[in-house]
């Protein structure tokens, strides 16, 4: 049993490494464009609302904590607490996506699209129509978009795990799916830990 647990956990870590590879490509693109156009990136972090980004950071950190608590609880075979913590995690993830939706729609309403359709207007966004601003927003939309897809996938998996816990499939002897889901969720949190300062603050 322990050997199976170790093997599946290492398999999960190797999957997470491929996820790191996926995101590192985008982080490298960000770095290259930032090194080429530092003044544009400096200016455009002001186009994003750090209060919304900061709220989302706190919400995701909270969800990481509750996932860790759900594993702590199932290790003590406390299924009720496990389900409760997983549900809180889902609520946090949903709050994150709602804020993301507000951010995206506000930008689209003001002509802030990725790529060739970039045509910002309105009091807040018009001053950001500077050279290489489309590149910044393309990187913003791709990075936060793919991260957002990971949040949605995580929500699906966590909901499934919560239902299985409620059905009594897991206890302190067998909880591998909860543990592996937790690892995935923490990785999604770590990606956002980097995205928030890089895009919103500096």
């Amino acid at each position: 049993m322990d050997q199976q647990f170790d093997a599946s956990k290492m398999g999960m870590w190797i999957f997470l490494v491929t996820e790191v590879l996926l995101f590192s490509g985008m982080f490298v693109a960000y770095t290259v464009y930032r090194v080429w156009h530092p003044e544009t990136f400096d200016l455009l972090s002001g186009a994003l609302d750090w209060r919304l980004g900061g709220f989302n950071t706190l919400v995701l950190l909270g969800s990481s904590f509750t996932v860790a608590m759900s594993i702590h609880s199932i290790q003590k075979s406390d299924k009720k607490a496990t389900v409760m913590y997983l549900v809180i995690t889902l609520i946090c993830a949903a709050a994150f996506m709602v804020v993301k939706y507000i951010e995206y729609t506000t930008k689209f309403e003001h002509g802030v699209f990725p790529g060739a359709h970039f045509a910002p207007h309105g009091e807040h966004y018009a001053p950001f129509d500077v050279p290489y601003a489309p590149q910044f927003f393309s990187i913003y939309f791709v990075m936060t978009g793919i991260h957002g897809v990971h949040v949605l996938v995580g929500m699906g998996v966590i909901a499934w795990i919560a239902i299985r816990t409620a059905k009594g499939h897991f206890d302190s002897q067998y909880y591998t799916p909860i543990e592996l889901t937790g690892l995935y969720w923490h990785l999604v949190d770590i990606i956002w830990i980097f995205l928030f300062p890089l895009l919103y603050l500096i």
Partner: protein
Amino acid sequence: MDHASHGHHITPKSLLIKVFGSLILLTILTVAVSRVHLGALNVPVAIAIAVVKMMLVVTVFMAVKWDNKVNALVIGLSALFVSIFLIFTLFDTAYRGDLSNVDRVPISDQQRQQSAEMAPADAGAAASEMPASGH
């Protein structure tokens, strides 16, 4: 099979709460520091805080501290290859064309100087708008 023979570490609730609190404080710190103008230091400071936060999540929340050491090796190698990916790409993109450049100043810096000289009024306007944009 009890917990001990099963060999799974149960991370204490108090430690999880402490790490969560530290992550919140570091988030507030990174926002606060970004409000202060440190010039070239703003970027490294923001990345350093993010790395500390990542280490907290990996060691305690992901329980790598008590995990099979081979997983720590997998993560360490992943981090190593990400830095190779990043640094070797920058060797190219940050110094593009400099192989045949006889000037002491890298081409990217020359271009930046040129564009700053060509549009000083624009750059001044953009810089003065930044604090006024309410961010």
